[in-house]
């Protein structure tokens, strides 16, 4: 009888823990909540995202530090603080970059809650936009445009929506093939930058 009670108790404990874990809000280890941001671009394929980007690169992060702040809040500490990220470009997939070292300016919308990608020595695949208000400085085209590279593996760096998940599943080699095809399609004029979501609604 005693072994039965012990087994029943153990089984019940396992079931109870499982029930508790699955009933919690989806913030378990390794899970990123969706980016709670209304962005001007949202993509469902690589080609339009490439077309909307000034450059697509594989690069290595060389540094990350707090940058300028913007806003006129009551307490300056409440202003939006950018993060200045530097990268060394390993491979240019799209775009006409003149230099190997690039400076990025990102904000909290481009930083996931965990597993930050802007850590020195991290290899990343980035879709980049040159900032119109800060020429020569880049940012990810949107939250879907950051992937961490690990061997042939791609992991979405910020947004884990359906598109970034499916693109990641290609692996690096097939993703590069996909991007090469996309760049040719853009050069042929077959794919053009889509309107931003605001332009598209007007």
């Amino acid at each position, binding site marked *: 009888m005693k072994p039965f009670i012990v087994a029943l108790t153990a089984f019940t404990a396992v079931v109870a823990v499982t029930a508790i874990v699955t009933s919690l809000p989806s913030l378990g280890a390794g899970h990123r909540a969706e980016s709670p941001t209304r962005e001007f671009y949202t993509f469902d394929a690589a080609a339009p995202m490439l077309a909307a980007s000034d450059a697509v690169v594989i690069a290595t992060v060389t540094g990350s530090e707090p940058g300028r702040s913007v806003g006129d809040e009551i307490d300056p500490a409440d202003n*939006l603080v950018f993060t200045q990220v530097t990268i060394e470009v390993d491979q240019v997939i799209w775009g006409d970059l003149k230099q190997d070292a690039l400076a990025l300016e990102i904000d*909290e919308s481009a930083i996931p809650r965990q597993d930050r990608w802007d850590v020195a020595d991290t290899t990343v695949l980035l879709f980049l936009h040159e900032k119109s208000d800060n020429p020569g400085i880049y940012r990810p085209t949107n939250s879907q445009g950051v992937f961490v590279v690990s061997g042939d593996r791609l992991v979405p760096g910020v947004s884990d929506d359906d598109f970034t998940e499916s693109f990641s599943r290609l692996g690096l080699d097939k993703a590069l093939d996909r991007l090469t095809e996309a760049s040719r399609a853009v050069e042929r004029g077959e794919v053009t930058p889509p309107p931003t979501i605001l332009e598209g609604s007007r």
Partner: protein
Amino acid sequence: MILACLTILVVAGPVTASNLLGHRAGWDSTVKVNKVALSAQFNTQVNNVLSESVNPTDITLQIAIDQAAANWEVNIYDANYGDTGWAGHWNCQVWGSMTVCTQGRVRLNQVVSYTNQEAKSLACEEIGHSLGLAHSNEVNASCMSQQWNQTKLSTHDRNHLNSIY
């Protein structure tokens, strides 16, 4: 006893649903909202969203103007944040244990001009995030769908909020 606990857990079922982010603003059903130096347009549209979409829920609003952020659960700012790629954004300082957000920030980016409908839609979505809602696919019913012509939380959204407040 064990079976009773198990029964309660199973009957309670998952708390999360399709468009809950996994947090709430503050510890109880009174949510403290601080509007900081808002432009006239966003001030009006934020007020409209709070009265039309949040007041009909179980949430009780406590609203202040131009206070320091530390004591407020939802702080709403607008400014020209520049070419960031986003129109609106919400984040919370308590990233590590996000089930209760005690100092969240809604930022409305004036990098472009918005119609009043667009400003209301944007404010609605970001306030929805701050209260605990994720994006939704209710394109004809909810501002959480990111459609610029949707300016209110849906019944589905409000039911979600009532389930966590």
